[in-house]
């Protein structure tokens, strides 16, 4: 069954990535730019609203409107592979930075608690966080091997818990500031030597004030890492898709704006300067919890709560990074960029386990290489984030000129001049991103070196893999989904699996003729009606008996189109393939097995609608064991023939 998730679940998945940055962004940015960090984090979070709009416009054009797809459509395969490589760098680092940060928080809490319990231990935060990060990554590896739906359940629970923590923490911080007013953080920049990177070699940059602002903005940009997950979850969002995407975007914007920005301000305003970075640089919210007003035991409890939630949400971000990277690599594999072997489905769970293994393998290697240094991970992290946004925004802008068809959503700020609509808003977003990305190349040594190496290596792998595919498969670029078939000897076994009162069966055969399916999806209320999308493989004689149940090329092509249609509508369907010696018997048997009250078919190129209905009526009667009425519908372009039997 192909099912879809609510905008709350979608928001939870994205927020697990986006909102988790609140736990480490403040420490990383302050180490780079000084006490003005919250202002730049605030600016980045405000700017994320425009990135959200870019993603919404791309999703309005493509259901699977991630960076790779959009860049490819706009600027071709080479740049698309390059942007996907940068994005993979983002995803591969998202997991480790989140999981290592969680380990840092936990180590900080345990080291605080040990003396209270008269335990003489002291954990090395770096190595403890490495061990914890590996354990968390392996846990979510297994969750993803089992399937995303369970993961979205967990994401929702994590965000519910985080919301409680955020409300408690903010209320406590406001109370603290009410009792002990503190000034807002200064707007002066104080870059550390590491944060200037190679910029020290360009002395002429120093007098230009705007350069410093762009540099600081670049150091804060990782605060909005996670927006790409918006495109990844779009295909999973239930109908009405665009409206639900807007809701998802609004939820994640408000949430991350409040949590990430406010917490950063509170940290600078409440935690004493003497301990903020030296003691709490890698676990800033623990420092905040221990610096608010109240008795020691209450602050200790707050810290424990903050750390508990932090461990869960940061581990959740590690999960989201696996889900997102898996989604990107799946698109690449579908497009023939990765060899088909990677898309092999897990026998039991039907997930692309080899891709998940690859991602998790790279993440564990990263965790070991960073040796628990969150700042180093943060420095490297922004490379993938900013370059994938640059490519994406440029692509959406190019598509404005390349594809002038109407969109469900457009980034605002368009000016019509001489019959041409100029995407001024998009152009401004692009310029900000490009300037930031270029500045980051100079200032973020670790990011530039590691990001470039990773991107080049991944790009090389994609290019080689694509060539290999082209040499070995004629249809290397034909994009087909992988399906996990569950075999049933008798159709009657599936009846009990349909719980909704209404059941509709749509018979499909030709991937180019799915008008009737689209109409059925338009009308479908997924809450009340099961939609079974059915096709039959016609075999006779021994071939019928000995048929191996694997999808052939045509069936994969057909069901890929079916899946795309269902994703576009955001409606739940159950695909079904039956091996039979007669297509009409197969349709009727399947419809009666699922208890369908409606059977929908497309117009045939060989038979008239009347002939189709006659044959269905005869077959229905010969197989019927009860007197339940059924509506037969034959739907074609501008025509529908419907009869109740």
């Amino acid at each position, binding site marked *: 069954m192909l099912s879809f998730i609510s905008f709350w679940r979608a928001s939870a998945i994205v927020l697990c990535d986006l909102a988790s940055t609140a736990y480490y962004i403040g420490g990383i940015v302050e180490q780079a730019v000084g006490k003005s960090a919250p202002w730049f984090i605030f600016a980045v979070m405000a700017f994320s609203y425009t990135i959200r709009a870019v993603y919404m416009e791309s999703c309005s054009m493509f259901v699977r409107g991630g960076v790779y797809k959009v860049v490819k459509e706009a600027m071709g395969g080479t740049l698309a592979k390059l942007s996907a490589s940068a994005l993979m760098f983002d995803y591969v680092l998202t997991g480790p930075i989140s999981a290592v940060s969680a380990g840092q928080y936990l180590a900080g809490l345990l080291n605080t608690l040990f003396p209270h319990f008269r335990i003489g231990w002291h954990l090395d935060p770096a190595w403890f966080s490495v061990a914890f990060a590996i354990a968390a990554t392996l846990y979510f590896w297994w969750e993803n091997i089992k399937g995303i739906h369970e993961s979205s359940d967990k994401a929702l629970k994590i965000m519910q818990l985080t919301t409680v923590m955020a409300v408690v923490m903010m209320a406590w911080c406001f109370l603290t500031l009410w009792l002990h007013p503190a000034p807002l953080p200064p707007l002066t920049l104080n870059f550390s030597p590491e944060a200037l990177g190679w910029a020290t070699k360009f002395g002429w940059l120093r007098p230009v004030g705007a350069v410093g602002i762009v540099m600081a903005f670049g150091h804060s940009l990782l605060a909005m890492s996670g927006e790409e997950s918006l495109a990844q979850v779009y295909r999973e969002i239930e109908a009405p898709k665009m409206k639900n995407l807007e809701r998802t975007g609004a939820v994640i914007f408000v949430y991350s704006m409040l949590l990430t920005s406010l917490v950063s301000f509170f940290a600078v305003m409440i935690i004493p300067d003497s301990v903020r970075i030296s003691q709490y640089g890698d676990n800033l919210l623990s420092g905040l919890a221990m610096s608010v007003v109240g008795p020691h035991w209450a602050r200790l409890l707050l810290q424990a709560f903050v750390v508990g939630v932090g461990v869960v949400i940061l581990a959740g971000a590690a999960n989201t990074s696996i889900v997102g990277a898996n989604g990107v690599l799946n698109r690449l594999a579908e497009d023939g960029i990765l060899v088909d072997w990677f898309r092999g489905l897990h026998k039991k769970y039907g997930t692309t386990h080899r891709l998940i293994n690859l991602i998790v393998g790279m993440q564990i290697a990263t965790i070991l290489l960073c040796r628990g240094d969150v700042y180093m991970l943060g420095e490297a992290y922004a490379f993938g984030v900013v370059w994938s946004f640059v490519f994406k925004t440029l692509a959406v802008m190019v598509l404005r000129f390349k594809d002038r068809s109407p969109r469900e959503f457009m980034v605002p700020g368009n000016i019509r001049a001489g019959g041409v609509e100029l995407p001024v808003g998009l152009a401004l977003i692009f310029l900000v991103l490009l300037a930031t990305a270029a500045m980051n190349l100079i200032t973020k040594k670790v990011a530039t070196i590691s990001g470039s190496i990773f991107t080049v290596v991944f790009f090389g792998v994609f290019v080689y893999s694509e060539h290999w595919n082209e040499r070995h498969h004629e249809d290397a670029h034909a994009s087909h989904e992988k399906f996990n078939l569950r075999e049933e000897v008798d159709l009657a076994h599936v009846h009990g699996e349909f719980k909704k009162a209404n059941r509709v069966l749509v018979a499909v055969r030709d991937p180019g003729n799915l008008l009737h399916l689209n109409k059925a999806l338009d009308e479908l209320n997924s809450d009340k009606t099961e939609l079974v999308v059915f096709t039959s493989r016609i075999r006779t004689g021994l071939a019928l008996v000995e048929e191996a149940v694997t999808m052939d090329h045509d069936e994969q092509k057909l069901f890929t189109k079916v899946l795309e249609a269902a994703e576009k509508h955001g409606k739940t369907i159950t695909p079904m393939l039956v091996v039979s010696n007669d297509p009409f018997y197969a349709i009727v048997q399947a419809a009666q097995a699922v208890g369908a009250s409606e059977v929908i078919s497309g117009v045939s190129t060989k038979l008239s609608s*009347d002939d189709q209905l006659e044959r269905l009526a*005869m077959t229905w*009667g010969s197989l019927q064991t009860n007197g339940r009425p059924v509506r037969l519908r034959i739907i074609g372009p501008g025509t529908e023939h419907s*009869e109740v*039997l």
Partner: protein
Amino acid sequence: MSWFQKDDAARSAPLNNPTPKGIKISSLLSEDVILYPPSGVDKAAVFERLVEAVCAKAGLDDPAAVLAKVLEREGGISTTLDTGLSLPHARLDGIDALWAGLAVLKTPLSDSKHPDLPVRVVFLFFSPNKREAFPLHLQLLRGVASLFQAELIEKLSGCAGPAAALALVRQREV
């Protein structure tokens, strides 16, 4: 012995009978349109004689034209079912009711279209060639296919003649 028999009392089903359950299939039949063809006849001959019988009952004066219509339809998608029931039919201009006849074959007919599907019962019918009559046409197809299952067909083969066959159909339909 002629296998053409008539029963003037037979009635056709009215069109304002919308539901499948409302069509009394046995009411469309009478002994004069129930045939037991001798062994050795082919499908074309069975169809021809059945058309003649039903035309005679319906008062249609050009059986050849009606047969041509039936055969034209037979050239399209199959009207034979796995149960051994063949459902030849035609939608005719100039009639306002359903007319039907039945042929029970002691020796199954072979069908060139489906050599592996022997025909044991032929239920032939005509329906009005009007859009509003099409639902009833479909309901009759469904109803007949539902009624003439393998077990009934087996029993019909064992009947002594049209009267017994009609009684059996009536009994099964109750």
